C-alpha cells in the first residue's frame, strides 16, 4: 500500500520532508519508524489525518502519517 509520510524537526535530517512510501499491508506506525531508521523512544507524536495515534496503529492505503520527535514550546 502507499502511505504519505511527513517528517518534522530533527526527523528531517538526512531524510525528507514529505515522501510517498510503499509499505506492506497491515504496517503499523512502529513499522513506519523502522522503515525510516527511527528508534521508538525518539518518537514524540504520530498523527494520521490530524489525529494522534499510538505505535500499534495499523495504517490503511492512502493515509498520511505525520511524525514528530519530542519537541515543544509554549
Amino acid at each position: 500500500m502507499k502511505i504519505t509520510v511527513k517528517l518534522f524537526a530533527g526527523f528531517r535530517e538526512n531524510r525528507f520532508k514529505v515522501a510517498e512510501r510503499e509499505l506492506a499491508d497491515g504496517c503499523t506506525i512502529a513499522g513506519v519508524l523502522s522503515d525510516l531508521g527511527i528508534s521508538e523512544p525518539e518518537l514524540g507524536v504520530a498523527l494520521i489525518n490530524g489525529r494522534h495515534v499510538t505505535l500499534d496503529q495499523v495504517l490503511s492505503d492512502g493515509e498520511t502519517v505525520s511524525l514528530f520527535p519530542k519537541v515543544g514550546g509554549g
Partner: protein
Amino acid sequence: MNKIFRINMSDMTSKVESVPAEWAGLGGRGLTSTIVAAEVPPRCHPLGPNNKLVFAPGLLTGTPAAQSGRLSAGAKSPLTGTIKESNAGGTAAQQLARMGIKAIVIEGMPSEDKWYRLHVTLDGISIEPADELVGKQNFAVMDQLMDKFGPKIGILTIGVPGELRMCAANISVKDPDQKIRSHGRGGLGAVMGSKKIKCITIDDSGGGKVPIADPDKFRTAAKIFAKSLLDHPVSGEGLPTYGTNILINILNEAGGLPTKNFRYGQCEHHEKISGETMHETIVARGGKHKHGCHAGCIIQCSQVYVDEAGIYVTSGFEYETIWGLGANAMIENLDDIAKCDNIMDDIGIDSIEGAVLLATAMEAGVIPWGDGKECLRVLRDEIGKGTPLGRILGNGTASVGKAYGLVRVPVVKGQGIPAYDPRSVKGIGVTYATSTMGADHTAGYTIATNILKVGGYIDPLKKEGQVELSRNLQIATAAVDSTGMCVFIAFPALDIPESFTALIDLINAAYGLSLTADDVTELGKKILKIEHDFNKGAGFTNQDDRLPEFFTYEPIPPHNAVWDFTDEEIDEFWNF
C-alpha cells in the same frame, strides 16, 4: 530579600518597609497577586490613583538555580479589568533580588502632567524627572539611559503607547544583550503610564549574593534540577534548536493552528513560517538559534533572528507572535513578521495582543489580509504615534471588534486569544475560559498533554478530562510563577519526578523550609483563589468564564470541531 519599597506618586514619597511575616514565603506572582488583592480596591479604575503596580522577583531569583531570573509585574489590568500578573526575563529581576528587594509597590498618581524615572540603588529609590524621555520609544530610551549610566544599568521602560495608556501597552525589560523582554499581557504598560513613570533604572552596584540557608543542599538540588532540564528532550534539545516556533507545524498537523482570524485550523503556507524554516534561515544567515532571556537560562528557547546581511532584526521571536502574524493574519514572509516583532518591542505593545488585533483589523477591512508591510506601517505610524486609528487598534482586539462591529472577535475577558484553537484543542479552551487573567495559554498549558504528549495524553478533540487537566496545570503554574522560574521547566517537571522534587528542594534549601509537594499545590490553589476573589470583587461572575459565542456555531476545519462545553461543565473548574 527583605525589603519592600513603596513609591507614592501622589505625594512623591519613597519608603522602605520590612517584609510582613505573612508575605515572607511568597515571591513572583504569589506576592504580586497577594499585594494587589490586599491593597487595590477591586472596583477601582485600573488607570486611576487607586490601582497599584507591583514588581516582584521570584522566590529563587538571584540564586544560582537555572531558569530562576524572571520578574513578575502585577496590577488590576486595564485590558481585562481582572487582576493581572505577567512575568518576563531580562536583567532586572536578578538585580533587584541581589539588592535584597522583594517587591516594589507603586501607588497613587501625580496631579501634574510631568514624567518621572524611578532610580533604584542600594541607598533606596528616588523619583527623578524624565521629561526628556517623553515621546521616545523603548530602544531610544534604553540607548539614552545606557549612555548616561553605562551598559550594565537595569531598565524597565514604556514606549509611546504606554504613555498614552493604551490597553495593549507592555512594560519592556532590558535583557543581557541590551535588547528587550516584555511583561507583555494585560496592558501593564498603560498602568505604568497612568502613574507617569516612563522608566525605572536599576543600579545594583554593591548588591550582594542572595542568602541561601543550606548551601550544600542547594547545590545538590540545583545540579539535579539542571540535569533534568538538559535530559528532557523538549527543554534539552527541542527548544534550543527550534525555539517555541516548532509548534507551527505540529499545531497545523493537529488542526489546531488558528488561521485567518480563527476561520481554519490549518494554514497553507505553514512551512514558510515554521520553526524548521526559521532554524534553517537563522543558521544560513549567521544568527543565533539559541539564546537566553536572562543569565542563568540553560534551556535557551530564544534566538537572534538576522536579515540577509546578517544584521539583527529581532530576538525572543516566539511562536505566538509568528502564529498571530503568520497564520492568523496570513503574512507569509518571515522577515516581515520579524520586523513587526521588533517594532512591537520598540513601541512597547504585547506581541500577542498586537498580532491578534492586527488580524482583527484585517477582518474589519482596515488592513489587507497578509499585508506585512502595511502592518509595519500601522504599528510604527498609527499605534506607535497614537493617531485616532492607532488608539482604536492599540486598545486591543476587543476594542477593534467593537469599533468595527465585528462578531468574530477572539477574546476572553477582553484579552486576545493566543495561538491554539479552543475548538480543536479543548483543554486550552478551558484555560482561556477560566484563567484569572483572561485568555492566557501560559496559565494552564494543556497543549503539553493535549498535543505534545508530555505529562500523559488527553485527546484534544474530546471533552473528557479537560477541566481537570486545566485545573491541575493552572494550580501548578501559579506556584511555579511564584518561584521566578520560566514556564518551560514544566516539561521536565511533568515527565521526570526528580525534577519537581529538586525544585521544591531548591526552595527549602534557600529558605530553610521543609515544604512538601502538597504544600506547593496548596500554594498554587491559594494564589488562584486570591486572584479569583479579586475578580469577583471587580464584578466578574461565572458567566464571564465563557468563550466568544462564534466558537459554538462556527465549526473549524479540518476536524469541524465546535466549542461544546456546557456552562455547568466549565463551572466545575472552580470546585477545589
